């Protein structure tokens, strides 16, 4: 039996620094796959750096669905409460709809809750 896969819709914001800005890209992601790697494999280049769930570069907003974020090195309850996800270490647990390119929003959110990396990156 093959691995379960989920359908993931990625909303790339109009103002994103991406060739695909304004598009909604649909991909299939296996239950043991990370959303970021799957998107890059499908030719959708999304921002990332550490790919270990630490730096927040890959942050996205979870519009619909559920993810397993347990592999992230730094992920907080307040992130979950505000539907922020680190897609480099997020495995789908249902079909998903996410808004990509939310690094700035994530930094503001973390600063508001006094969580790392704090305010020093907001200038």
């Amino acid at each position: 039996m093959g691995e379960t896969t989920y359908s993931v819709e990625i909303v790339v914001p109009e103002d994103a620094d991406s060739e695909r800005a304004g598009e909604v890209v649909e991909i299939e992601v296996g239950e043991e796959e990370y959303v970021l790697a799957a998107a890059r494999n499908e030719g959708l280049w999304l921002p990332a750096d550490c790919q270990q769930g630490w730096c927040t570069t890959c942050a996205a907003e979870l519009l619909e669905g559920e993810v397993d974020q347990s592999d992230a090195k730094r992920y907080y309850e307040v992130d979950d409460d505000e539907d922020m996800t680190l897609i480099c270490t997020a495995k789908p647990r249902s079909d998903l709809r996410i808004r990509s390119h939310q690094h700035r929003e994530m930094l503001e959110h973390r600063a508001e809750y006094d969580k790392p990396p704090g305010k020093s990156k907001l200038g």
Partner: protein
Amino acid sequence: MASEEKQHGSGSVEPGDTSQRVGMEVIRERGGDPEEIREKLIDAIGAEFTTYYYYTNLRTHLAGNEDYKEITEDARLEDRAHFELVMPRVYELDGMIPNDIRDFADRASCPDANLPEDPTPENILEVLLEAERCAIRTWSEVCDMTRECDPRTYDMAQRILQEEMDHEAWFIELLSMERDGEVNPAGHFVRGEPGDAPYSKNNPFNESA
């Protein structure tokens, strides 16, 4: 005549104006964002600096595995060299490293390389390997940001990347043997002296680098 008044004029920067930097404006003219590059560099050297710290602990827990210890020492000192190499660039780009070391560590672009709860050589080597992989991703990002617009930062980033890739190869080789009993050669060996940093120190930007 304007050209006589501005004999040394350069783009939009007035002659003698020390409030602006041509070194930043040339990046902007080429489509880069010097402030964004600078902030990324602070995160990246934050990770080099924290790794230098954490590898100290990892190295000291490899007693009895003198070859692992030596290679960890190499990687540790080279990560410090990477911090030293790029730190001046942050200032050239009109920035500074955070005043509070806690801010610096918090914004490091890679996870803390903590000593594992069960500090066996296998577990320590896995931490080392994943730390090197994070560094490879970070410096590849910096290369992407600077390739077309900022040759000075690009040159530093690609030289650091060379060493981080060496480090990954070393730890793949050691972890393969330690954990799986497999020969998985790095294809090269450690430096002549620990911390040689043949790429990042071959053209140092200051004496301490």
